[in-house]
């Protein structure tokens, strides 16, 4: 028996000998190092995505003026600083692509999936450490390949991040030939990286939970990351398959989506959104999980209705597979399908409502500490609710006739992805930063960044509802071409200015993040006084995480348990007998 035990924990013993810098930091198989590598990569791409957004907003706010510093851009993009329409279309495409595939998804699934899962379930590392390293080092070339698309002849892909065929399938229609192929290849490679990662996460959560860590003692962040890994595992291959078909349409002259050769343009939309909707739940579920952890910690109180939260996550993930048609109500799909997808879409509002009210229930009767992660978490709930409610307008098919492909949809996207996922990411990075680097981020500048981001976020994206209500279409280069959009240009200018201020206020986060490495206050093992297993090991945890395999005695949210002096109780410390109801 011992040989097997030793073999199983080889990660723990095998790595004690000193590794070269390359093996330790670059090609490391330690889930914590890989988590931090994903963090740095995704923050860079988040910055790139934000930069592209600034160019877009400039063009929409001041359509006929050259962009300041625009002379740096080559002639094919912005002659004399004036952005060209085809470059604007590739900006819109690449802003969506970078933010969704290379910023939010890696930040949520790559960073916190890697860093938190082994630590929070009491495992020494992932089930397959080498495979874990490969999933990062497959994602980096995908990112660099996507970046290289800007410098090829014909410009980068310009058919939207959804790259609907035939616009994306026939290079003659957009003048983009190499760019679209690069986009497809990069997405396929990134898909491979995500599938490898998901396989790793699922096996780790199922197999390597510490003794006593039953399924209903898992923290909600791990539940969310586990369910998200299943969504990634089953959704990304669909996109890879579809991307390959579109790539063949481009290169081998196949006719999957080309009506002249018998193909179906709607086939691409079905395939893309069959992947697309689970994808948007991949982008929000981990954020929901981590926000639940942070709000419970901030309120010093167990999560309200832990089981309903778990079933809500599962319900959202399951329903996510049968609603994809609501992206295609007006696409020429059979209208009866529209009614069917409307019903399944409306059903998704129920678990989201459950989660929202449970978060509020957690804060109810709590003893709230407003540390920076808590501020971000509460903002997540506040903003996600607006995103969820604006989703109701689109779920009703007749109203969707009017607001589909208008800025109402863009407002919904950004309230859910920026107001939701990104606020959760800011909170989570600030929350687990001390565990990753051993020092705290400066709380004062954290609050300044939160306030500015909160204010400018709302100034930027709330008026987009108004643009949508007045029929302002999406992805248009110069709204002044339409009479009925002329009066909205004032709002567009206001949004542009707010967007620039929003982008500027992110510098505070970057500086705080980097300076924290040197000047941050030293964080002990448990700066937030949290119950998670990761807070029972030194910061940053050594290789192999736990000196001895921890045993878990109770759920993760035993805050303010009666009979316990402190108002928190780490999971590996048994409940004093007779204390607390939830002792199973």
């Amino acid at each position, binding site marked *: 028996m011992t040989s097997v035990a030793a073999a199983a924990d080889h990660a723990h013993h095998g790595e004690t000998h000193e590794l070269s810098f390359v093996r330790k930091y670059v090609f490391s198989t330690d889930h914590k190092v890989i988590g931090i590598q994903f963090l740095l990569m995704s923050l860079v791409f988040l910055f790139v995505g934000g930069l592209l957004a600034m160019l877009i907003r400039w063009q929409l706010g001041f359509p006929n003026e050259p962009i300041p510093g625009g002379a740096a851009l080559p002639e094919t993009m912005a002659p004399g600083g004036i952005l*060209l329409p085809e470059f604007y279309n590739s900006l819109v495409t690449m802003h969506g692509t970078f933010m969704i595939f290379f910023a939010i998804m890696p930040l949520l699934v790559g960073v916190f999936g890697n860093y938190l899962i082994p630590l929070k379930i009491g495992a020494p590392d992932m089930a397959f450490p080498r495979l874990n390293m490969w999933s990062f080092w497959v994602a980096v070339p995908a990112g660099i390949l996507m970046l290289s698309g800007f410098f090829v002849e014909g410009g980068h892909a310009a058919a939207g991040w959804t790259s609907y065929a035939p616009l994306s399938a026939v290079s*003659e229609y957009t003048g983009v030939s190499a760019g679209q192929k690069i986009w497809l290849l990069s997405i396929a490679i990134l898909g491979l990286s995500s599938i490898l990662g998901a396989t790793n996460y699922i096996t780790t959560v199922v197999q390597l939970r510490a003794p006593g860590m039953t399924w209903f003692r898992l923290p909600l962040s791990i539940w969310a990351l586990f369910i998200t890994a299943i969504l990634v595992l089953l959704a990304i291959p669909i996109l890879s398959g579809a991307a390959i078909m579109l790539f063949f349409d481009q290169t081998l002259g196949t006719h999957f989506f080309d009506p002249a050769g018998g193909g179906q343009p709607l086939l691409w939309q079905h395939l893309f959104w069959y992947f697309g909707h689970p994808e948007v739940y991949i982008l929000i579920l981990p954020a929901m999980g981590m926000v639940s952890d942070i709000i419970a910690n901030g309120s010093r109180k167990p999560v309200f209705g832990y089981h309903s939260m778990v079933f809500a996550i599962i319900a959202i993930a399951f329903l996510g597979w049968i609603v994809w048609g609501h992206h295609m109500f007006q696409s020429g799909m059979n209208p009866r399908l529209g009614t069917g997808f409307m019903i399944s879409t409306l059903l998704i509002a129920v678990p989201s409502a459950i989660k929202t009210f449970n978060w509020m229930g957690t804060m109810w009767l709590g003893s709230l500490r407003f540390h920076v992660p808590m501020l971000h978490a509460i903002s997540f709930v506040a903003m996600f609710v607006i995103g969820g409610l604006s989703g109701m307008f689109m779920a009703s098919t007749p109203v969707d006739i009017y607001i589909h492909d208008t800025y109402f949809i863009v407002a919904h996207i950004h309230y859910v992805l920026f107001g939701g996922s990104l606020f959760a990411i800011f909170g989570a990075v600030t929350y687990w930063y001390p565990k990753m680097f051993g020092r705290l981020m400066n709380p004062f500048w954290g609050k300044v960044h939160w306030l500015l981001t909160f204010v400018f976020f709302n100034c930027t994206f709330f008026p987009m509802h108004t643009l949508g209500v007045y029929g302002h279409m999406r992805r248009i280069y110069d709204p002044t071409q339409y009479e009925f959009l002329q009066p909205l240009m004032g709002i567009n200018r206001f949004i542009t200015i707010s967007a620039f201020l929003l982008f500027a206020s992110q510098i505070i986060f970057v500086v705080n993040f980097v300076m924290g490495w040197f000047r941050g206050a030293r964080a002990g093992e448990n700066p937030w006084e949290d119950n998670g297993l990761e807070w029972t090991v030194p910061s940053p945890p050594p290789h192999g995480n736990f000196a001895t395999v921890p045993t878990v005695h109770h759920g993760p949210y035993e805050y303010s348990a009666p009979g316990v002096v402190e108002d928190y109780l780490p999971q590996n410390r048994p409940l004093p007998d007779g204390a607390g109801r939830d002792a199973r």
Partner: protein
Amino acid sequence: MRRTWMAMGLVLTIACGGGEGAGGESAGGGETPDAGAQASVAPLGPGTISGVVMFERTPPANPAIDMSEEPSCAARYSGQATDPVVMVSGGRLANVFVRVTGGLPAGPYPAPARKPTIDQAGCLYHPRVVGVVAGQSLEIVNSDSLLHNIKAVPTANRGFNVSQPRAGMMREHTFTEPEVMVPVECSVHGWMKAYVGVVAHPYFATSAEDGTFTIGGLPPGTYQLEAWHESLGTKTGEVTIGADGAGTVAFTYGTM
């Protein structure tokens, strides 16, 4: 531990952020278009082919253009704007692209530095038919204060689909492979058509308003010619340049 993260973060930022500026063509000033491309190439000989393109019967009516939804272009035309497909005046046919197809010494011909220009004015291309030597760059200028996009879908050359949203914008493009008549069109205005003849050598010309054309810089000898028109088809002909360095040829369309 911390310094390494900082170093790695820096490296990643430089790798991804850098390398922004990419080479793009320089925005050369628009030159006045002159007739023959031969002028700026060392002539092979003193001879000149001068010819004329006749048109027999009465020409068919050119299709009308519905410019009602493009007021700034419609204003330039007094009556009903028409698409100048068959331009005939005084029995002479314009916009016929004539090039030498035989009798020339082989050998690579350098692409002249001069850049012919296609101007987009009044939602039409001027000139409608133009010739360039393979490798010679062509200037496309937008004189209308509205969006034109230039889409070329050649077979031998690489296509392009670029836009010029504002007046005064100039774009250069170079065709590398000889291809007689690369169709150029504007997707915003479906009726706008232009044709670019990419030829390996500089011995070609387009018939002017009065149907006449001249191809100079040729030594005495016999040459085969080909005349091309966008809707009336192609015709071949032969011309001999005598000792006096002059040769005349005539093509006739509209005979059927």
